[in-house]
């Protein structure tokens, strides 16, 4: 335990009564006194503050940074306007996803935010592949906070009214509580909100100022997981991984036309032949939303079948649990393409019994983004 890393908010978490657990090499708050269920519901009703400082923040600099990144990521980065952010992923030669990430055009650099568990590998990958004219600079002196929920705009606008002018996926450099913050209007809950990169030394004061609002509660990783699951958002290492292509993962929307067959900058990323072929002719399996018909949650690893008895396994659940807003169990997983249409019934084997689930469009709860 002693070699776990701590975020700049560690002492604050402990003072708030958080239950700390090891996560991706960090000691992180899994829940506070409210508990996972109440924290989840509070975020959907008002606003939740999350410490996501364990995630990797990286600046990619150089005149050709955007085009160089396009050689690793099947996304339109060169066409990303200044002050805008988009979702993407590193792919491997087999078309699998090495990590998913956020990319922002911050004028003189592309700002990349990657998963905590993958950040060392991602940085090494960029250093090895982006070439000498592009600089890869890990940002190691900034915390990352997320303020999520319908009250997020009003709360953050108290510190700087400019945040209210931002639209979903806008990014801006703004003074918040006396600190220079890199703010994006985005998140991982399916709610409106902001992600805020703040200098380490200013992080605790900013967090305390936000928490002083009656509308804001500290929210742990437990509720972060149930919120993103209801939001239909993938968790790397579970719903997507190096053996899963973006097409299988139902993330084709993230690959803009300019990178697809016939586009001006088509292909030119690892695994392009496989990914573009799957876009054209379909993948053999697909990530889908699943609603267990009973009350029992079905979690990661539950095998899926086409029939209530017999037959081969047709997939498995990759994330599942209880959705506090849905007020019932929700899951996502992979099924064969022929069973991926909404309203198809499949069966999950739980404690020796096959129980029905319905293939369901995601998100499970309506997204509340400010478009």
């Amino acid at each position: 335990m002693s070699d776990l890393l701590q975020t700049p908010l560690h002492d604050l978490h402990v003072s708030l009564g958080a239950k700390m657990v090891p996560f991706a090499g960090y000691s992180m708050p899994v829940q506070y006194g409210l508990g996972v269920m109440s924290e989840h519901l509070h975020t959907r009703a008002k606003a939740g503050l999350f410490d996501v400082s364990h995630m990797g923040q990286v600046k990619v600099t150089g005149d050709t940074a955007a085009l160089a990144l396009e050689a690793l990521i099947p996304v339109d980065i060169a066409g990303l306007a200044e002050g805008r952010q988009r979702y993407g992923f590193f792919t491997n030669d087999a078309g699998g996803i090495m990590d998913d990430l956020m990319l922002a055009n911050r004028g003189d650099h592309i700002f990349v935010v990657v998963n905590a568990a993958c950040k060392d590998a991602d940085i090494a990958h960029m250093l090895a592949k982006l070439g000498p004219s592009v600089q890869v600079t890990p940002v190691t002196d900034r915390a990352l906070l997320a303020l999520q929920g319908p009250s997020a705009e009003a709360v953050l606008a108290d510190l700087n009214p400019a945040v209210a002018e931002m639209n979903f996926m806008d990014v801006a450099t703004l003074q918040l509580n006396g600190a220079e913050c890199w703010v994006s209007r985005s998140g991982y809950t399916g709610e409106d909100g902001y992600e805020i990169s703040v200098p380490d030394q200013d992080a605790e004061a900013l967090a305390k100022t936000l928490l002083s609002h009656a509308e804001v509660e500290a929210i742990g990783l437990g509720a972060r997981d149930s919120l993103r699951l209801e939001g239909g958002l993938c968790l790397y290492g579970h719903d997507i991984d190096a053996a899963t292509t973006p097409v299988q993962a139902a993330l084709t929307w993230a690959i803009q036309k300019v990178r697809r067959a016939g586009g001006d900058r088509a292909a030119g990323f690892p695994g392009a032949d496989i990914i573009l072929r799957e876009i054209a002719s379909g993948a053999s399996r697909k990530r889908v939303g699943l609603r267990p018909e009973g009350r029992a949650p079905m979690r990661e690893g539950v095998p899926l079948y086409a029939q209530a008895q017999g037959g081969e396994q047709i997939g498995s659940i990759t994330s599942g649990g209880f959705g506090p807003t849905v007020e019932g169990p929700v899951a996502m997983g992979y099924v064969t393409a022929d069973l991926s249409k909404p309203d198809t019934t499949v069966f999950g084997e739980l404690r020796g019994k096959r129980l029905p689930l319905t293939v369901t469009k995601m998100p499970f709860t309506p997204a509340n983004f400010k478009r």
Partner: protein
Amino acid sequence: MKFTEEHEWLRVEDDLVVVGITEYATTQLGDIVFVELPEVGTTVSKDDETVVIESVKAASDILAPIDGEIVEVNDALTDNPSLTNEDAIGDGWFFKIKPSDASQMDDYMDEAAYKSLIG
């Protein structure tokens, strides 16, 4: 009332024993979202997996603390699993068992011993 090391409580009610889990257990488990109860009439042996509970975090099995026949289950939990969080030693009970050997109760802790176990 008696307590097991698995954080179950047992309360004698006439010739039956009512079984649930302790408040300490519910705090450790977090919000309980699903309870699967045994069928009335089932005969169980000590340590049989008898109840499945799912919290927001994970699934757990509740073992039969003694041999006997399940004579009543708390059906209210099926629609309202959070009763166990709200009133672990009252309305949150799981099942009533007719013991085949009441002396098995003697193996378990009294309240003072249980309190010292959970510190």
